[in-house]
């Protein structure tokens, strides 16, 4: 942990060497998701509700998805850019060091410019939490925190899975974006509105709905089973097959030359 802290400081310092670039990139990140927010805003100006969910309820979903995706991106960026790490032989260096592999890959890159997006998610939380008509209590706030953390674990697991595939293909696979960027994009609305089939996929194939949709239904009072609040914990189990796949890929890894 101490070592990780050290790495974090290093990344922070190196980024602060190029302040303008850092802030511009962070601003860019902010604007991109601000566009998405504007999209939601104008859609609700016209329609007022979708599938029975109100504007601020949808914003709550948007903030959960955005913040968990961003947290995963900030801290697990090493796996997201794993293809380049393999391509330039960096991974071979990592293999010979006497520390855990996962730990080293995580330390390799901390993408603080994504904080622009996180800031936006926080602002939206500040608006949506008091306005979405939920009677908040301790357990519900815990539930909301679990939603964000569960989401972070799911997205991080997807990055690990993606890195695992890179062992075989040696380059990035663009269609994995469907699961990461696509989920971020369409997770801005409650997943239930896309219809039953999509919901089944998002529950059993990749458990997005376990952290975004079902606990949300309990929060807004559409379902009364309190167990729904703890489904994000279940979604964390998704990391196990992803990690195992990564280990399996690792065993089959043959370096990339010189």
């Amino acid at each position, binding site marked *: 942990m101490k070592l990780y802290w050290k790495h974090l400081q290093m990344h922070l310092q190196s980024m602060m060497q190029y302040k303008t670039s850092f802030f511009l990139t962070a601003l*860019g990140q902010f*604007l991109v998701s601000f566009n998405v927010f504007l999209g939601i805003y104008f859609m609700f100006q016209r*329609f007022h509700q979708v599938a029975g969910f109100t504007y601020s309820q949808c914003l709550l979903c948007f903030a959960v998805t955005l913040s968990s995706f961003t947290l995963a991106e900030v801290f697990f960026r090493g796996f997201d850019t794993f293809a380049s790490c393999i391509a330039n032989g960096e991974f071979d260096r990592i293999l010979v060091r006497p520390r855990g592999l996962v730990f080293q890959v995580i330390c390799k890159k901390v993408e603080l410019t994504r904080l622009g997006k996180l800031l936006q998610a926080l602002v939206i939380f500040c608006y949506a939490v008091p306005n979405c008509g939920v009677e908040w209590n301790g357990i519900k706030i815990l539930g909301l925190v679990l939603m964000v953390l569960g989401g972070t674990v799911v997205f991080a697991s997807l990055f690990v899975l993606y890195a695992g595939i890179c062992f075989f293909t040696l380059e990035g696979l663009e269609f994995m974006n*469907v699961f990461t960027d696509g989920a971020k994009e369409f997770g801005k609305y409650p997943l239930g509105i896309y219809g039953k089939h999509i919901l089944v996929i998002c529950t059993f194939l990749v458990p997005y709905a376990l952290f975004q949709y079902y606990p949300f239904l309990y929060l807004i009072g559409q379902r009364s089973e309190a167990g729904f609040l703890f489904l994000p914990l279940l979604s964390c189990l998704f990391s196990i097959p992803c990690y195992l796949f990564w280990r399996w890929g690792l065993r089959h890894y043959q370096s990339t030359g010189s």
Partner: protein
Amino acid sequence: MKKYWAFFRMRFINGLQYRAAAWAGVVTQFVWGFMELFLFDAFYRADPSAFPMDQQALASYIWLQQAFFAMFTSWQWENELFDSIASGNVAYELCRPVSIYNMWFTRSVARRLSRAALRCLPVLLVASLLPTPYGMGLPDGPEAFAGFLISMVLGLLLVSAFSMLVYMSAFYTISSQGIRIVATNLMDFLCGAIIPLPFLPDAAQGILALLPFASMNNAPFRIYGGDIGGMEMAYTIGLQVFWTVVLVAVGKWMEQRVKQKIVVQGG
């Protein structure tokens, strides 16, 4: 003219090389298209009377958007050009007996066209097989189709002319990051890439339609589905011509200014 044609061909063939990436792109585009359809379907069921477009026209819009994504997307910048300006390599380009504006403009058009050429056919083919109102519909009559084709060409030229302004501005700022970020996001929203323009508030429609961004992908996609037709179609195409001429003129003017006062960085 011949030399620009050569540039065009070079760039076009170069763009056709990335086939694996294109297939992955097609898959992504499909998922995106379906999710968009489900999304708008949910909004349609929420309040059909507030829906500003015909459902079939919207489905065609979405599939066209996915099929020609690479052609109109805002972030299709050519980093090589920015790098060459920042590193000073652009000096070699300036030495050539060709206009740098024309050369880069051709490049830009060719790149967008080649990327779209690889991706559009599979998307359009499968989308046309889907059941109505989710599939890609037929164009709204022969004149709509003719208007669509003309409008597509103009839209492509206009997008390229717009990116040229950004490239040219890089001569002044060296680090182009800021302008790129603003330009990308502005264009994304105002050209209807986030949500189609008819879904924006009615009060803003009048102004939005006049902006150059509305003449990019918005115009051809809506002409195809009959959302813009008749006299309005002629007017829209006229506006596209106007903006293309204006942006090219501004770009050319910037090129002249740049040439007079350029300081090449580095040794």
